[in-house]
């Protein structure tokens, strides 16, 4: 797959969220605040979100990387690194 830029990744991310949390639109969700503080996502929703990213982008996100998936911007940065084949260091 050709590498997607940050804007395309952001779009794919919101598209993946839409069926799970229809209220999570780019207008409503701030990119710099933790996603789960802004919308009500339980573990099942989060797993469905990770699954949808896998389907759209072909990236399989291991559970050990979940700590990277905090804000929209952090997820975009993580996905960019995964596209380039660089594995980000473990989240603090």
């Amino acid at each position: 797959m050709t590498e997607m830029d940050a804007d395309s990744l952001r779009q794919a991310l919101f598209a993946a969220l839409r069926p799970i949390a229809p209220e999570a639109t780019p207008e409503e969700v701030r990119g710099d605040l933790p996603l789960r503080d802004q919308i009500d996502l339980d573990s099942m929703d989060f797993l469905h979100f990770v699954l949808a990213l896998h389907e759209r982008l072909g990236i399989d996100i291991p559970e050990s990387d979940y700590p990277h998936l905090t804000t929209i911007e952090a997820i975009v940065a993580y996905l960019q690194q995964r596209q380039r084949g660089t594995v980000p260091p473990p989240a603090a």
Partner: protein
Amino acid sequence: MIEFKLPSLGADMEKGTLLEWRVRPGEAVTKGQVVGVVDTTKAAVDVESWQEGIVHELLVEPGATVAVGTTLAVLREPGDTPEQLASARARIAAAAAAAAAPAVAATTERRVSPAARKRAQELGVDIDAVQGAGPQGAVTIADVERGAAAKTPAPADRARALRQTIAMAMARSKREIPHYYLAEEINLASALDWLRRENERRPVTERLLVACLYLKAVALAARKHPAVNGFFLDGQFRPSAAVHLGVAISLRGGGLIAPAIHDVDRLSLAGLMRGMSDLVTRARAGSLRSSEMSDPTLTVTNLGEQSVDSVFGVIYPPQVALVGFGQVRDRPIVVQGEVRPAPTVTASLSADHRASDGHDGALFLATVRELLQHPESL
């Protein structure tokens, strides 16, 4: 000849509105096939047929609201003669006419208890439209609540109707069921370790959630301790041989429903996970099946995501118990005289004292705890 009737999709359902037929006259129906969609206060439900036959006649038009037990369609079986079908048709038509006739003659003065009048105001029910079933046609609280349940909502009113349905079921539960409550802190260290290792080797499409382990442990424990699994009906407890777990699912627009996953004690964890994932998705999309709505034998609620420590739930009648799980987090535990941190969860049991005693409940929770210490055998 088979009369396909509107099934009860939960103890609190009296009527349903047919939204659409999914079959046509002349079509063959197989076991488990969805034949129509019925709107209840909770959801639009796909109603399945549990018998096989050829659709002979559809008796109810989409848009009609009918009582539970009303014949919706007639299915033909091999060997049915035209005479048999015609006489059955006449019998059904007579039953429908009898049901439509006014049951109570007009009275000069309506008797309405003050409590019923107050309840009608609370529920937003028109008291004049409620038919009384009390002495001499008096309108009682039960009549008002039935009236509220029978109101079929427009989609925009669904949230309010769902609230009323929950209100009625929960009020009935607290009126009728003598609850007792038990709680037990369970060490999840080995369960979470096992889960992490499992999920590392599983592709994302087959990953498991801890809730899966809870459900399987509860189902196996319920099979061992049947006093918490079944229904209290007609003044007595009727244990259920099957374990159909109701899974409390909160809806994004507010409210919750608890449809069943069937035979959880016999499912593999992978199968249970698929069932849970599918059920949550369809419950939130408002697309459930009749078999899922009608028969949970025990309900499980997991409020751990909301960071509460423990849940003391209200039993959903006619069930006799509800199991709750709180938040998983590191807490101090004592092992061999030393305090150390370990991930724990509080499992709680709300149970009906008419069906079981605290001793039964305690044994049940102890079994859940033991099963969760050996996740590989779940």
